[in-house]
C-alpha cells in the first residue's frame, strides 16, 4: 500500500525480538499480518505482498535439512575449539530457509531431507545460534 512507509530501523534494535526469544530457546520469525508469509532474513516490508505489517511469531522449530556441509577449519575466533562442525541450511515448516548448525551433541550422520528439531547453542562471543538435532526415525532417505 502506497500510504505505508517502512521506517529505517537500527539493525540491532530490529533484531531484538529474535534475541529475546532465542534467550528462551525459541526461534522467532517475522510473519506478515496481511498475507501470512514468513520472512527471513529480517525485513521492513513483506517480500510477498509489500505490507509493512510484519509481526513476530514463534516458529515451531521443526523443519527439514536442505543441505549440509562439514567445516573443519576456520580463522574465526568464535569457532575455536568447536571444529569440526556441520553447517546446515534448514527449510522450516513455516516456509523459510535458515542457516544453522547440527547440534554439537548430535552424533548421527545427516542427509538432505532429514527431519530436524531446533534448539540453541551459544557462540564464543555469546550469540545465540540456531542448531538442530535429527528427529528420532525422522531420516527421510528419499530427500524432497
Amino acid at each position, binding site marked *: 500500500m502506497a500510504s505505508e512507509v517502512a521506517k529505517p530501523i*537500527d*539493525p*540491532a*534494535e*530490529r*533484531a531484538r525480538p*529474535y534475541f529475546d526469544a532465542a534467550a528462551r530457546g525459541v526461534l522467532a520469525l517475522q510473519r506478515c499480518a496481511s498475507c501470512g508469509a514468513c520472512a*527471513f*532474513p*529480517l525485513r521492513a516490508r513483506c*517480500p510477498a505482498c509489500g505490507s509493512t505489517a510484519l509481526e513476530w511469531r514463534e516458529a515451531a522449530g521443526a523443519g527439514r535439512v*536442505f*543441505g*549440509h*556441509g*562439514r*567445516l*573443519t*577449519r*576456520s*580463522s*574465526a575466533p*568464535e*569457532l575455536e575449539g*568447536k571444529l569440526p*562442525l556441520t*553447517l*546446515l*541450511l534448514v527449510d522450516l515448516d513455516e*516456509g*523459510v*530457509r535458515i*542457516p*544453522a*548448525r547440527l547440534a554439537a551433541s548430535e552424533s548421527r550422520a545427516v*542427509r*538432505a*531431507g532429514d527431519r530436524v528439531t531446533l534448539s540453541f547453542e551459544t*557462540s564464543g*562471543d555469546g*550469540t545465540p*545460534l*540456531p542448531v538442530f538435532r535429527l528427529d528420532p526415525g525422522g531420516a527421510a532417505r528419499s*530427500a524432497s
Partner: protein
Amino acid sequence: MRDSLAGATAICGLGMTELGRVYERTASDFAAEAVLAALADAGLAKDELDGLLLNAGISQGIDLSLVQTLGLRELSLLTQMNAYGSSAGQMVQYAAMAVHHGLARNVACVFADAPLVRGQRAGQAYGGARARRPGLGSIVPSLGFAGPIPFYALHAQRHMDVYGTTQDQLGAIALSARQWAARNPRATMREPLSLAEYHASPWVVAPFHVLDCCLVSNGAICVIVTGAERARDRPRPPVYVHGVGQAHQLEWNDASPSLAQRSSRAAFAMAGCGPADIEQCQIYDCYTFTVLTTLEDYGFCKRGEGGPFAESGALAPGGALPMNTGGGMLSSYYMWGMTPISEAVIQARGDGGARQVARNGRVAVSGNGGIFNHHATLVLSPHALG
C-alpha cells in the same frame, strides 16, 4: 518471428591484460590497458568509442573516472553495473541492445580487479576482512558461514545426497579445467592435476576442497560490441551475438539453480537453437558444483546426471562438449563473467592455438552471480545468423 536483436550485433574487439598473480598494479590501470588493447584489436580509434560499461570486481577498483583516465570524449552511453558473476554477460547484452537501437555504435565492456596482494593468501585477499554485521547478520558468520563458499558447498552436498553425485565427479570438473589450462599460456595453474591430488587438497567446507573453488586473480578483460554489419569491416573475425538471456531473484529462501534454466532458455530461443546445437560451452565455474548444475539447467544432460556427464570426459579435451577450454576460473584466471566470454571470443575466432576446438559454430556462455541469485547467458558464433 525472430527477435530483431538475434544476430544483430557482434563482438569486434578483445583486450586482455596479464592475468593472475600480477602485483603492484591498480585495477584502474588494468582496465585502461584492457580497453586500449580491445580498441587496437578492433582497429578503432579512441574517439570512435561511444559507449563504456564498467564492472568492478571485489576490490571495487574502477569507477567512472576511467573515462577521464582514458580521455574519452565521444561517449553517448556510460554506466557502472554489478550483479557479480553475471555482470559481464549482462554488459554485453545491454551493449548489444544499445547498439541495435542506435544509442551507440561501439561499446566497450570492461571488468577489472586487483584484490591480490603479494605475500597474502588468495582467500585473505578476497574475503578475509569481512565486516561484522549488526543484528541478525551476526548469526551467519558466528555459525561458521563465511562468504559464499559454504552456501554453494551445502547446495553441492544436497545434490550428492539426492542424486548420488560423487566427490570423484566434482573432481572430474577440476581435472578437466586443468587439462585445458595446460594448453593456455595465460593460465595461472598449468601443472598436471591427478584425482589423488584433488582428493588430497585441503577442505574448505566439505564437500568442497580448495581445488573445487576458483582462483583469485588480478587483471582486466574488455570486449567491444558493435553492429553486425560494421563488425565485418573490422580487422578481426566478428563474433556474432545470436542470443541473450538473464534471470534474477534475491529470495535466498528459494535460491535455486533454476535461474540458469530460465536464462538459457531465453538465450537459446533468441538464437533459434537448443542445447543439442551447442558445440562448446564456456560455463561460469566459481566452483566445480556451479558447472555441474549449470550443465543440467542448460539441458546438456538431465537433472541429476551432471556428475556422470562430467566423469565421462565429455567436458575435457577431445570430449563431446568441450567446456572452459582456457582452463576456466578454476585453473586459469578469475575475471568474473569475462573469463568465459573472453574464451568464447578466442574460440569463435579460431585463436585458441593448442586449445582450439574445431567445432565452434555455437558457443554457450554463462555467468552466475551471488548465491544462485543472478544468471546471464550468451550464445556466440563466428557465423552471421542467416
